[in-house]
């Protein structure tokens, strides 16, 4: 029995018990459902072993939406607790656990899979390829992400959540001040999913640089592909930094080392430094693909090509370099000298310039365009003013001397939500709506979509703009309560109402999905938006091999040219197509990684050693494997093409 005590939650509460019950019931429900409908074989064959970038993309998106729910519930709980002074809804410990999981879940397990899901689904189609460069590795990327997320998500019912913030600073995150295994979960789940992300980086860069259709030079690529290329370059540059930092943090907690400790020469600031060397570029990894999405959507629904293609590319390159030069602005107040702070102040302010170039290019694209106010376009237009406000407050924070006033107040919290929500979340919802018909063969309902957009925008403004004011008034972040005399009450109550409206928006989005599955017509064709780029030149649903003929590209909008200027997009004839085989190894190896992570969290060394060996066995199996894929014959291709609607255009 004593062995099992380590899995107990250190600070249980009714909410946590309820969650345990809910998780248990859901798991039982899923297993029962799969068994009753005899879908285990289907699940294994079509989803668990798939190496198809489209399926993998969809799995990422489903995971992201589920995690959006979890992170959102965390947010609503926090806002409820802070809505009135000295509320008793959450005690300090629970509040700490909730803001920690909210941050980690939203950034690592919601935003990242959301953008990676679209990168996976869309980029090969946009460049006219049949899959990514390394389909097997792609599957491993997804399952490692999934297992990392699962590991993190069970922490609050087995062993305890991390509670040292999503930034997990030392010495707070060390054993002395964080005694539960929560921070171990943090270190290991991020490590596992980080490995998956690094592999995605390698995969996407190789795919984009080596697998474009003939005629698609770099400067003819769609903007989303460009943004993906650059974001993945940042991924491969900075994720190794996180790998090392997390390893050192794990060692401090489990092997008694003194990297970040307060004794024996350790330096706690080294953690913060390494974390932000990764952490700042991370937010640019999130925003650049979002910018790419906006470029696609704004140009499609303005009926014009994107204004300033070259400066769009150039600005993203500059942003990626600068993003690696600004990290210290996250800890201006931590004791380094004026020269350091000044340098990082200047670089931080400089990064606003290329971003501004992009905003103006979008505005110029809209100017005199034939605007269609669809749901994706609404999100894009809402993004422009809201994100600009967030960016401007960023420049305020960038002034290191002034930052002594703003640092770690609600002003900061407002700034980063003001950039991430209109920046990344709006883009993801816009992309979801925009690409939904390509992925699933029907449209999401426009009316419900517009309600969701307006609720989200209004809710967002109500929730976060008051925080600018309370932050300037002195309300600190990560504080579970405040006294009545501070006067923070009314604005916090307003924030809570805003959060509630955002929750309604989420419910509307989910309802939209349900409603559309039931009622949306299924005969929308393969180009419902009258779009411009290659991914829309495929059938709906997209066949396994994407394109029957290799496309021939002569401009940055090959599909538009095909439609309007009679450029022949698909010259040549059908040949047999080489496709990779499905494989169970990615799923199996990642499951072993889950066991590895779990045993590491609880310092169960024998199990750790066994699972490590298991991982290496999977790798050795792969090395000796001789699987050269299969061929889809010309007859099969012709059959599929005819079934899906004949030769394209």
């Amino acid at each position: 029995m004593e062995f099992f005590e380590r899995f107990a939650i250190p600070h249980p509460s009714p909410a946590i018990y309820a969650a345990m019950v809910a998780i248990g019931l859901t798991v039982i429900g899923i297993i029962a459902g799969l068994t009753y409908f005899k879908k285990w074989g289907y699940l294994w064959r079509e989803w668990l072993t798939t190496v198809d970038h489209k399926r993998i993309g969809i799995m990422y998106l489903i995971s992201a939406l589920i995690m959006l729910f979890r992170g959102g519930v965390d947010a609503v709980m926090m806002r409820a607790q802070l809505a009135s002074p000295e509320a008793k809804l959450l005690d300090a410990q629970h509040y700490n656990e909730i803001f920690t999981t909210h941050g980690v879940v939203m950034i690592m397990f919601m935003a990242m899979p959301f953008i990676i899901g679209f990168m996976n689904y869309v980029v090969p189609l946009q460049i006219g390829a049949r899959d990514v460069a390394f389909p097997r590795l792609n599957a491993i990327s997804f399952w490692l992400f999934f297992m990392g997320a699962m590991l993190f998500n069970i922490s609050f019912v087995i062993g305890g959540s991390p509670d040292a913030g999503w930034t997990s600073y030392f010495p707070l995150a060390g054993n002395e001040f964080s005694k539960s295994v929560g921070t171990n979960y943090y270190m290991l789940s991020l490590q596992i999913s980080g490995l998956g992300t690094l592999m995605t980086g390698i995969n996407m860069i190789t795919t984009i640089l080596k697998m474009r259709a003939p005629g698609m030079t770099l400067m003819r690529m769609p903007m989303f592909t460009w943004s993906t290329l650059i974001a993945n370059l940042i991924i491969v540059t900075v994720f190794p930094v996180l790998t090392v930092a997390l390893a050192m943090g794990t060692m401090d907690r489990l092997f008694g080392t003194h990297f970040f400790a307060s004794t024996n020469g350790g330096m706690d600031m080294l953690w913060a430094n390494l974390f932000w060397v990764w952490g700042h570029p991370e937010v640019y990894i999130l925003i650049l693909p979002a910018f790419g999405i906006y470029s696609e959507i704004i140009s499609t629904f303005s009926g014009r090509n994107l204004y300033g293609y070259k400066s769009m590319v150039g600005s993203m390159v500059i942003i990626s370099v600068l993003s690696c030069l600004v990290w210290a602005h996250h800890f201006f107040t931590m004791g380094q000298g004026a020269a350091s702070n000044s340098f990082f102040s200047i670089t931080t302010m400089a990064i606003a310039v290329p971003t501004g170039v992009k905003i103006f290019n979008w505005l110029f694209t809209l100017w005199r365009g034939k605007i269609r106010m669809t749901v994706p376009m609404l999100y894009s237009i809402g993004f422009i003013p809201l994100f600009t406000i967030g960016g401007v407050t960023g420049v305020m924070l960038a002034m290191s001397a002034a930052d002594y006033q703003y640092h770690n107040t609600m002003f900061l919290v407002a700034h980063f939500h003001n950039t991430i929500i209109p920046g990344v979340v709006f883009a993801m919802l816009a992309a979801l709506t925009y690409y939904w018909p390509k992925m699933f063969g029907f449209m999401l309902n426009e009316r419900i979509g517009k309600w969701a957009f307006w609720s989200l925008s209004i809710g967002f403004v109500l929730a976060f703009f008051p925080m600018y004011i309370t932050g300037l008034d002195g309300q600190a972040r990560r504080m579970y309560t405040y006294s009545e005399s501070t006067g923070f009450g009314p604005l916090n109550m307003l924030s809570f109402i805003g959060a509630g409206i955002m929750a309604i928006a989420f419910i509307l989005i989910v309802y939209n999905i349900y409603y559309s599955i039931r009622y949306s017509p299924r005969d929308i064709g393969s180009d419902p938006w009258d779009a411009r780029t290659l991914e829309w030149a495929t059938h709906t649903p997209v066949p396994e091999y994407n394109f029957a003929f290799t496309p021939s590209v002569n401009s940055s909008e090959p599909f538009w040219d095909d439609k309007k200027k009679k450029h022949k997009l698909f010259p040549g004839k059908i040949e047999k197509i080489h496709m990779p085989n499905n494989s169970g190894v990615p799923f199996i190896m990642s499951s072993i990684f889950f066991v590895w992570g779990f045993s590491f969290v609880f310092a169960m060394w024998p199990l750790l050693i066994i699972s490590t060996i298991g991982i290496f066995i999977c790798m050795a199996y792969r090395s000796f494997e001789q699987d050269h894929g299969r061929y889809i014959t010309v007859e099969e291709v012709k059959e599929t093409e005819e079934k899906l609607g004949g030769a394209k255009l």
Partner: protein
Amino acid sequence: MRELFPAKPVMGFVFSLVLTLIALSVYFLDLSFTAGLTILIVTAFVQALLQLIVFMHAGESKDKWAIYGNVYFMIFIALITILGTLFLLIWDM
């Protein structure tokens, strides 16, 4: 037998041994910190370039621009990370 030991790798190997010996001089001779560190930096980077160009054949395929670009970019960011960290945590404290 001769063909198994082509000139370029052999010369490269000899050169890298020479560079190592030069680097060793900072241990055996009594140099100032700056002088010693300069020798180490120069020999290390030259040897790294040697490995990259002669042994790893970085320049021999049509991907060489992407490969060189990637490596130089990483080295650039690596230097920024190292120097920036030292600046923040050790030198400007």
